[in-house]
């Protein structure tokens, strides 16, 4: 089973940083020194003992807003990625196993969705629909699922022609067993690595939407929204906008370090007992 001593240093860094972000996200109201929308000082105060990261463009404590921002950013990104993966992989696997007209129909529909630039598509949809978190998650999840669909269909088509899948079909197994018990475990490795990447794309996509004003609505803000709020400060040499930007980068790297490590573990075909 999992041996703590054998976790490589890269994975440790990823686990710790990701863990820290997740901890902040879950326990935001208890961790944050001030309220999310509470105005506690002057505009763009420098870092001090009272305000570790300084204050933002309205005089709110930047650290507290970063912590609340983590909560909303990670929540939306996690739910959108989860939606994208469940939808994309199940439809992708089904298309590969069923084949025929279902496959053609699904694949062409996905091609159609992918031919429209994602950001523009999302902007149009979000400006028409009511802007709340559920709409945001649905739009992000569905748009992202097209990528997952393509990957999982391609992987599953390869696995579907293997003898063990044929053996299962000859046994008379239903599609559920073939998809979830025969194909899914063997498609997991590429999907896990894709999961790390897609989660980060979700964070970046959300940040881009918020930066353009169609994502999370004020007064609450995700990290992308905070970059937008504080971007004017950069001209005056105030680093407030760089802090959420840095947090996005740190999250991206640490999540992928963890994904790499999981990937290494799941490619092992000997039940985690090692090769040789």
């Amino acid at each position: 089973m999992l041996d703590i001593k054998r976790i490589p240093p890269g994975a440790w860094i990823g686990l710790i940083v990701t863990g820290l972000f997740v901890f902040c996200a879950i326990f935001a109201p208890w961790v944050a020194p001030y309220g999310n929308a509470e105005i506690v000082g002057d505009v763009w105060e420098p870092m001090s003992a009272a305000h570790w990261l300084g204050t933002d463009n309205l005089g709110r404590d930047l650290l507290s807003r970063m912590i609340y921002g983590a909560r909303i950013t990670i929540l939306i990104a996690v739910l959108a990625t989860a939606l994208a993966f469940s939808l994309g992989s199940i439809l992708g696997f089904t298309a590969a196993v069923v084949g025929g007209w279902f496959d053609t129909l699904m694949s062409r529909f996905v091609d159609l969705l992918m031919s429209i630039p994602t950001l523009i598509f999302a902007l149009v949809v979000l400006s028409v629909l009511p802007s709340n978190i559920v709409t945001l998650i649905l739009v992000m999840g569905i748009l992202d699922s097209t990528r997952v669909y393509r990957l999982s269909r391609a992987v599953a088509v390869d696995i579907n022609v293997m003898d063990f899948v044929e053996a299962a079909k000859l046994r008379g197994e239903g599609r559920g067993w073939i998809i979830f018990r025969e194909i899914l475990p063997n498609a997991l490795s590429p999907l896990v690595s894709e999961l790390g990447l897609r989660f980060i794309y979700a964070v970046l996509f959300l940040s881009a939407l918020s930066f353009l004003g169609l994502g999370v609505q004020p007064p609450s803000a995700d990290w992308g929204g905070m970059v937008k709020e504080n971007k004017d400060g950069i001209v005056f040499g105030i680093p407030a906008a760089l802090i959420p930007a840095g947090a996005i980068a740190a999250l991206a790297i640490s999540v992928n370090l963890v994904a790499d490590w999981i990937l290494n573990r799941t490619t092992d075909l000997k039940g985690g007992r090692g090769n040789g």
Partner: protein
Amino acid sequence: MAEVQANKKEGLLLDIRNLRIEATVYPPDEPPKTITLVDDVSLTLERGKVLGLIGESGAGKSTIGLSSMGYGRGGVRITGGEIILNGRDIMKGGRSGIRKIRGKEVCYVAQSAAAAFNPAHQLMDQVVEASLLHGTAKRATAEKKARELFRKLGLPDPDNIGKRYPHQVSGGQLQRVMTAMALCSEPDLIVFDEPTTALDVTTQIDVLAAIRDAIHATGVAALYITHDLAVVAQVADEIMVLRHGKLIEWGGTRQIIKEPRQEYTNALVSVHEIEHEEKKPTDTPFLSVKNVTASYGDGKVKVLKNVSVDIHPGQTLAVVGESGSGKSTLARAITGLLPPMEGSITFGGRTLSNSLTGRSKEDLRQLQMVYQMADVAMNPRQSIATIIGRPLEFYFGIKGAERDRRVAELLEKIEMGKGFADRYPAELSGGQKQRVCIARALAAKPKLIICDEVTSALDPLVANGILKLLLELQAEEDVAYLFITHDLATVKSIADSIAVMYRGGVVRYGAKSEVLAPPFDPYTDLLLSSVPEMEIGWLDKAIKSRRMESAGN
């Protein structure tokens, strides 16, 4: 021949002393460790002689063969010993020294010619490449030499075959072109790495004869690597038996075959003999294939033409033929994976639905299948208990402790311990994997198991064990086999009746004793006479006595 250097011993070409080859493996989450592949092997080879290297997979035969050109495949390192070729240690020559030797003094013939040729270049360009690179000949001379070699190797249209691309010639021809490529730069030594293993028996005999004649005509020395003792007996002057990277026995061909001194060699020599008493067909076959015609691509390519065979309870029908003869397609038609265009399959008096989706669970249970490649026939992510236990769950609803008990019983039956239950396929050897596949088929308690080339990918000794197991299980469980194979030795030891297939049709069908008794039709005769026998001089006899050209030409 290449110039003879004055300062070296008369006649001695290759002298490998105390060779040690190691590799580092990197198991995930574990410190890397070094494993020894070849341990303290020494050999000498005189000019113009052929040394056969023989052993099971993993014996280190290819590794030793490649070491004569200073090459370690896939990160393998030569860590000890000397490799003296033409009087000098090639390992001391450094990288550029080795490059001068490869393709000029030592050439290599790979197992899979199809994978070894560059598909984007014409054959001639690849054949003369080494000569041009080493500057031993001008293009015109090299091409002239190549055409001569093509003729000598019995290739059709030797003047123009060089203009073709690798995919435009057959597998047997490609293997001969590769031999021409090795001979073209007039090396002193050629390493043949299982050159005929991937070929059909009928093609193998031609390639084997061509290689042997070319070796004799040019006087080149050779290391001939194979796992088939009968093949190597036809070409080699001396034979070296290897196991687990260690030398077991080394002697003249006659001595190794007739008077093996080691127990392991004896096991290799006497491997093919299983006594099997033929059972008489019953009055009512339980499965009949009637006039089945099947095709791929909406009837464009007919791969089965009007095939009819019967299978009797508890008996074995062997389907024999070379690749492309439709034997596996017959299995696909019976299982319903490829619905036949015409004809029907009756099972226990009822006509089975042609397609898989139209068959009941009970019908599916009665027909089980064991595949050629056990590696890909089992889900690598499922434990052995899941793999064997699934049919029990699926067909009989047996779950939990009762299932585990049945799995243990089945493991016992295939001569593997209970300890294997929680292992994964990647942790098993090739023979064990095939046994698990057999257990999975047995778990369904079928009437018929279709065995599609189940022993082809295995070493002879392991294959022999599988055949014995299948026969024992047949006696215990009264299960019938449809045994698809291209290996007639296997057929002799397992079949009750035989169907010989050729280009999609059955050319000869009946009880084993009838099919294997003269008079033969030309194709069966060709098949039978092409099976290598462990006898010196068999090759000449076989070629002289056959009446029909093999399909490779």
